[in-house]
C-alpha cells in the first residue's frame, strides 16, 4: 500500500469499517511511513473538531411563524377541498389548461375550418360581381363566372348550392374573365 492508497482508507479506518486485509495493509504502511502517521493524526483531529461543532439553535420566532404559515396553508387546502367545482367554476377551470393545449386546439380548429372553406371555394374562388367596362365604354353589370360558365359550358346544372361553381369547371373561364377585365381596363397611355 502506498501513501495515496493509505489516504483513501483514512475514513474507513477512523470509523472502524475496514476489512482485515485492508486494515493490515494500512497498519503496516502507517508503521513504516512517518508522513502518513502525521497526516492520519491530523485527519482524526480535524474530523473530531468538526463533529464537535455546536448545534445551531432555532430562534424563538421560528416555531410560531411556522405554525402560522401551516395554519394558512391548512386553510387554503381546506378551502380547495370544500369548494364545489360546478357551473362557472368548471368553465374557469378550462382556462387553467396549459397554453400549448389551447394553441393545439386552436390550430386544429383553424385547420379544419380552412380545409372546409377551401374545398367549398369560400377562400379563393368565391365569385363576386364586378363591373366590366366593355370596349364600347359601356358599364355593364356582369356576374362574371356564372355568366361565362353558361356561355362556355352552357350547363347551369353544375352550380353548387349558393351559386358556387365546382372548381374543376372554372379555371379556364376565370382566366378568360381576368384577361378580359385586364384588357378592357388596361391603359394604353396613347401607345397603341
Amino acid at each position: 500500500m502506498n501513501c495515496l492508497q493509505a489516504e483513501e482508507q483514512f475514513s474507513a479506518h477512523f470509523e472502524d469499517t475496514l476489512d482485515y486485509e485492508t486494515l493490515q495493509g494500512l497498519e503496516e504502511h502507517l508503521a513504516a511511513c512517518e508522513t502518513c502517521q502525521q497526516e492520519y493524526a491530523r485527519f482524526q483531529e480535524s474530523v473530531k473538531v468538526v463533529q464537535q461543532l455546536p448545534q445551531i439553535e432555532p430562534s424563538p420566532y421560528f416555531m410560531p411563524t411556522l405554525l402560522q404559515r401551516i395554519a394558512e396553508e391548512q386553510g387554503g387546502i381546506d378551502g380547495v377541498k370544500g369548494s364545489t367545482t360546478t357551473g362557472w367554476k368548471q368553465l374557469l377551470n378550462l382556462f387553467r389548461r396549459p397554453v400549448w393545449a389551447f394553441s393545439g386546439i386552436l390550430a386544429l380548429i383553424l385547420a379544419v375550418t380552412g380545409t372546409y372553406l377551401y374545398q367549398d371555394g369560400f377562400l379563393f374562388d368565391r365569385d363576386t360581381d364586378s363591373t366590366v367596362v366593355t370596349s364600347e365604354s359601356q358599364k355593364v353589370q356582369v356576374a362574371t363566372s356564372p355568366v361565362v360558365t353558361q356561355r362556355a359550358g352552357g350547363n347551369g346544372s353544375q352550380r353548387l348550392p349558393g351559386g358556387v361553381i365546382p372548381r374543376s369547371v372554372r379555371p379556364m373561364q376565370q382566366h378568360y374573365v381576368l384577361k378580359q377585365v385586364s384588357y378592357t381596363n388596361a391603359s394604353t397611355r396613347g401607345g397603341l
Partner: protein
Amino acid sequence: MLDLDDELMERYQKGDESAFTLLVRRHQQPLINFIARFINDRDNAEDLAQETFIRMFKAAHRYEPGRAHFKTWMYHIAKNLCKNEIRNRERRDKYRVDNVVNSGSDGNNQTEEIDLIANTPANSGFQPEVELERKELRNAIQKAIAELPEQYRLPLVLRDLQGLSYDEISEVLELRSGTTKSRINRARLMLKDKLKPFI
C-alpha cells in the same frame, strides 16, 4: 415496524394535526443546523427550514410510512432548496457577510457565547484565552467547510454534523454508497489541509 417519525406521519394522515407539529419540533434544530452549516447563513437557514416544512406539509398526504424515510425526505427537500438558494445568491452576487454563521457579530456566536458562559461554573478555571482559541477554531472550521466544493460539503455536513449513516446520505444525495464514502473521505482530507494552521 414503523419508527416514531413514520408513526407520527401516519397519525397526521389520519387527521391528528398535532402529530405534524410534533414532527417539526423533533426535527427543527437538526434541519436549521444542516441548512445554516451548508449555506453558511443563519437567517436564511430559518427561512429555508420553514419552506422545507411547508413543502412536507403540503405533500404529507402522499407520504408512505414504511416505504420512505421521513429524515431523508426532509434532508432531500432541504438540500434542493439550499442548492437553489446558493445558485440565486451567486446570481445576485450578494453575499450576506453580516449573517455568516460564525462571523464575529452574528446571533449564533452570541448563542455560543451565552452557552459557554452558562455552562461554565462560577469558580472553575475559566480561561478567556482558551475560549478565544476555541472560538477562533470554530470560525476557522465553519470557514473551511464553507470553502469546500458543494459536492463534498454536502455529504460532509450530513455525516459529521448531522450524524446520518452512509446509506441515509446516499438516499438523500441519490448517490451510490461507494461514491458517498469516497466523497466524505475526500472532504475530510480537504478539511484537514485547510485546518492545518489550527491543528
